[in-house]
């Protein structure tokens, strides 16, 4: 050890050569693994949004009366809104635990791009909390009497719209993480940014439902998603730096 001490002072590479080098890909995999293990350990909590979505969906036929045509007509929009609402509570706690237990401080000093870690967290969050909602969509569609031809479009729409919402939500969640109270605040901030997403998603679903072309709104969503994948993690990293200042 002593022989390497001198070169260590000058050069970081020398220091690394003696151990397991950290690289960006390895860091992302480590973060994904950690988040999956954590999600598995709290799998009970992961069922809550699912349960919420199923219960709310089941309430609609009771509240509106069992008119299959009425249900079929509103099914697409209702399911879209239910998914957005079911996503909200989990978004709020996206960075909260890491801020409270000091893990974010460790993120900040790690020799990895913070934006990349934020993007990885978004991916892990989407896979663990949102993907299950999309997987049960056929069941929810059946409850709402959703026309079978609309189901694939609804799922594709959600596959584009929900990552976009999680990316936006990550920025806002990071912003709100440093604040005193953030529950209703996140909803207030997410609403204006989610409106365009919901409009285009609803446009695609309505198009599919009435037998009209639905490619245009889906393409808009895809364009927004591409931009958000690059820009949102950068904004998220800036927000996390503000959150750690205290």
């Amino acid at each position, binding site marked *: 050890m002593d022989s390497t001490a001198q070169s260590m002072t000058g050069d970081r590479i020398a220091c690394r050569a003696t151990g397991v080098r950290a690289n960006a890909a390895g860091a992302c995999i480590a973060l994904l693994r950690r988040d999956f293990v954590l999600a598995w350990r709290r799998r009970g909590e992961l069922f809550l949004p699912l349960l919420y979505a199923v219960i709310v969906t089941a309430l609609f036929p009771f509240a509106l009366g069992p008119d299959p045509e009425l249900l079929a007509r509103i099914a697409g929009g209702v399911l879209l809104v239910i998914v957005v609402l079911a996503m909200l509570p989990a978004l709020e706690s996206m960075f909260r635990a890491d801020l409270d237990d000091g893990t974010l401080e460790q993120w900040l000093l790690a020799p990895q791009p913070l934006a990349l870690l934020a993007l990885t967290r978004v991916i892990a969050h989407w896979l663990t909390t949102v993907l299950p909602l999309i997987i049960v969509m056929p069941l929810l569609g059946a409850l709402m009497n959703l026309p079978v031809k609309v189901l694939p479009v609804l799922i594709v729409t959600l596959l584009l719209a929900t990552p976009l919402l999680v990316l936006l939500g990550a920025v806002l969640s990071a912003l709100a993480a440093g604040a005193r109270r953030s529950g209703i605040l996140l909803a207030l901030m997410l609403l204006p940014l989610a409106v365009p997403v919901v409009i285009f998603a609803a446009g695609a679903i309505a198009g599919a439902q*009435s037998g009209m*072309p639905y*490619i*245009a*709104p889906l*393409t808009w969503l895809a*364009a927004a998603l591409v931009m958000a994948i690059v820009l949102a993690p950068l904004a998220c990293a800036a927000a996390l730096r503000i959150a750690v200042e205290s």
Partner: protein
Amino acid sequence: MNPVRKRRLIITLLILGAVAVATGLSVFALQRNMTYLYSPSEVDAGKAPDGHPFRLGGIVKEGSIRRVPGTLTTDFVITDRFQSIPVTYTGILPDLFRVGQSTITTGTMDNGTFVAKTVLAKHDATYMPPQVAQAIAKAKQEHRIPPDAGHGGSQ
């Protein structure tokens, strides 16, 4: 290359790539029609949804307004100067509803007639005193230009 500049370069390239892809997708999307309303020509071409409510926009055709006596029902024809569609509506019409006015109605097609649930009048982006409007109309008449060609709104 030093790490700071390398990272900036990567971020810049990523942003440029994303902008390029997003622009491509937007151009593709713009070529597809996504509208607030459909024109009579589009309805005639079968582009409007069938059996579902949609918005029909156009100009109220000259001499087409017929009020059914004793009711609030009004029949009129919406045209975009190429195709026309008869519309029937029961209810109170907005102030601006008149011949030659841009109008947006929401409803469904029923046997070739558009049954409107709401009628909205769109006013155009032109503001001028009535005397000027009359003078323009007169000048247009002298030059045999249709009265609504000058200010048909931004449709």
